[in-house]
């Protein structure tokens, strides 16, 4: 136990040392905890209030002996089960079986089970934050159903036991994953699953919040649909039964958690960590490979496209402009009216452009930071210092433009508005390109030396980039707004509309391009990444 405490203490120490490595003052651990608590409260309070209202209405609708409120808790538990399973499994595989420091830890006189538990706890601390958001849901459920204090205590105990089940299953699957998957493959799998969970959870929330509890037909249909998930072998059903102190919930939940935790512990003590090999034996030499050669410029673009496609953090940024119009459209469809759908579509297009503009800077910075990591290799190639950077700006601009075009084309196939989509995307491309170039400048000017691809800019860089990104987003959205026919100020004459929403933003675009290219020309391109 002492060694476990020691491992965790040093891990926490390493985390709190991160600001020191960034050249800032060390932040004490209690401050971090307070900060996280602040974030938790800021999200939990509105969530509590929202679900309290929901549960008060849903608890009155009973279907097959189960209230809609119970079913809502069950679906939340299934949601958290899937969320933790798909995000924690690859995270545990990466953190426990593929972590670089495991080799070092194995050389120390520490038992494998201690290493396993400490690495597992690290994963829970890092990735288990979403599981906390079930707490306000459970509190509002308890409040709405007027649970006594001892039952609330049991409910939280059961939630911990439920979490043990999920974590044990994740650990066992992670062990299997680590036996056949590579590190990079696992990382990509993690992004893929996270994306699916992210999209599904937002779609689910969007659907649930659009329901009107006073509309009996909808809620009853919903209850009928949800009753299919109230199956006796699901841990979520055990959970809902257990918090009502029913033996058919308490027993299976506790017994399953105990068995799974024991199995996981036994596996972790049996030498699995030392049995893992980071690189599986390579396949037989494959002869007759086909090599695809291009011009140097094309080679850079092709390489940057591959790196972008395979970098999870950039993929995340690229997916946002595609997802957000969907949410608005769901709202529009729920509103059930042609004008509602048209407004949602226009809003979706404009929001997509706004988000693309905001994220272009940071996506370019992330791609440039990959080059910074490789650094010296690129300087030994017979290409100009600017070529690798320019190619990134074009690749990111192209990627966002393609994402928007594809999204809008699909949406307009169903809801119309194709011409508006094409005009707004074409108008936003110059802004995106200018912002991409600013991303190049920002990475060179304000690099975060230890942030990696996920956090390529330091604090100043992040603030300035957000400001410039916002300005670019305003310009791109104003132009789109002008052509969409929507008027924020309907009392303005067409001439003023033209000046404010088109001529002004285009002038702003030209000024922004001029300033950014001026800034770029001042960079020492012989050593663009050399920190002073």
């Amino acid at each position, binding site marked *: 136990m002492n060694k476990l405490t020691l491992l965790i203490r040093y891990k926490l120490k390493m985390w709190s040392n991160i600001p020191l490595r960034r050249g800032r003052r060390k932040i004490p651990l209690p401050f971090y905890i307070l900060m996280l608590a602040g974030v938790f409260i800021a999200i939990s309070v509105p969530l509590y209030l929202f679900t309290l209202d929901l549960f008060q209405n849903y608890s009155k609708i009973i279907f097959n002996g189960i209230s809609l409120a119970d079913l809502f808790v069950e679906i939340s538990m299934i949601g958290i089960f899937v969320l933790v399973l798909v995000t924690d499994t690859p995270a545990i595989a990466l953190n426990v079986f593929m972590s670089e420091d495991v080799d070092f830890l194995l050389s120390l006189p520490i038992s494998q089970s201690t290493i396993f538990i400490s690495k597992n706890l690290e994963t829970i601390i890092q990735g288990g934050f979403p599981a906390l958001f079930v707490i306000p849901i459970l509190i509002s459920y308890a409040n709405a159903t007027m649970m006594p204090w001892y039952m609330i205590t049991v409910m939280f105990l059961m939630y911990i036991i439920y979490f043990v089940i999920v974590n044990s299953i994740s650990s066992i699957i992670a062990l299997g994953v680590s036996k056949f998957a590579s590190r990079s493959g696992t990382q990509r799998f993690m992004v893929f699953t996270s994306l699916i969970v992210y999209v599904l959870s937002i779609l689910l929330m969007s659907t649930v919040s659009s329901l009107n509890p006073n509309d009996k037909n909808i809620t009853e249909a919903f209850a009928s649909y949800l009753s299919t998930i109230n199956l006796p072998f699901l841990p979520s059903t055990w959970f809902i039964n257990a918090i009502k102190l029913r033996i058919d919930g308490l027993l299976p939940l506790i017994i399953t958690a105990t068995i799974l935790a024991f199995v996981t512990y036994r596996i972790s003590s049996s030498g699995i960590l030392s049995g893992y090999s980071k690189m599986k034996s390579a396949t037989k030499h494959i002869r007759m490979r086909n090599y695809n*050669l291009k011009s140097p410029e*094309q*080679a850079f673009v092709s390489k940057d496209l591959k790196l972008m496609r395979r970098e999870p953090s950039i993929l995340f940024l690229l997916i946002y402009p595609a997802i957000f119009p969907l949410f608005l459209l769901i709202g529009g469809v729920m509103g059930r009216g042609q004008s509602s759908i048209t407004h949602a579509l226009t809003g979706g297009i404009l929001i997509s452009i706004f988000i693309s503009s905001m994220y272009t800077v940071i996506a370019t910075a992330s791609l440039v930071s990959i080059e910074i990591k*490789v650094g010296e290799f690129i300087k030994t190639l017979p290409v*100009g210092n600017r070529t690798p950077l320019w190619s990134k700006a074009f690749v990111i601009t192209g990627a966002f433009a393609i994402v928007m075009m594809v999204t809008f084309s699909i949406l307009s196939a169903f809801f119309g508005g194709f011409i508006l989509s094409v005009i707004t995307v074409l108008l936003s491309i110059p802004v995106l390109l200018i912002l991409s170039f600013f991303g190049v400048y920002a990475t060179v000017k304000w690099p975060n030396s230890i942030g990696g691809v996920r956090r390529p800019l330091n604090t100043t860089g992040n603030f300035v980039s957000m400001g410039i990104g916002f300005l670019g987003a305003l310009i791109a959205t104003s132009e789109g707004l002008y052509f969409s026919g929507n008027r924020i100020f309907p009392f303005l004459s067409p001439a003023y509309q033209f000046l404010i929403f088109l001529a002004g933003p285009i002038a702003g675009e030209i000024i922004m391009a001029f300033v950014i290219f001026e800034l770029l020309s001042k960079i020492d391109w012989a050593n663009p990444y050399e920190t002073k």
Partner: protein
Amino acid sequence: MTQLVKVSNLKKNFGTFTAVKSISFNINSGEIYGFLGPNGAGKTTTIKMLTGILVPTSGKIEICGLDLLTHPLEVKSQIGVVPDEPKLYENLTGQEFLEFVGSIFLMDKDEMKKRIEELCDAFEINFLEKFIGDYSHGMKQKLMLTSVLMRKPKVIFLDEATVGLDAKSAKILKMLLKKYANEGSSIFMTTHVLEIAEKMCDRIGIINAGEIIAEGTLSDLRNESGKQSLEDIFLQLTGSTDEEVKEIIQNL
């Protein structure tokens, strides 16, 4: 004999610290030049300046008859660099990386394919379809060597290139470098393994505290120092005698 590398009065300052103090040397065509020195002596800084990674504070570097400062791209297209720690694109496969390098150097597709297959056979590379992020240090080093040797550059710079290689690959590399030198290439290599320098290098330069303190063939160095092994010569020149080392060991 053609001098493929000419370095005169090369100097590099980092703020007030001078890492390399006005060094000069030449490397002939077909010559393997060993650049030795203790840790922090200025070896890596020198190699970085010779390969265009670092800009010198002063001095002149001429490679293949071209000034590196005024013709950096022309020079880079004729040299190959193998760094001590290969940092590569982790999200590219080995094959994609070789395609990228081949494209940048405008290689002939068939020639490149043939050279890669020969080198893959020699270094037992059978992992080109895997992502570089999953490679060990040795695998990365082999990939980096392949990306350089497939081009048969006129001048090859190697910084501790045998580190991470297994015995067979290290032996093949040494023989390949000898072969390339016989075909007219110039090789500039740094190493801490003095046996390698002793066996392979035609001439050796020893750098200490940013200054070249000895240069010549192994027999020149032996004659000057009166010592036989390169290890003894190196320790004597860098200020660490055999007795001093023994005393340190005794005190431990």
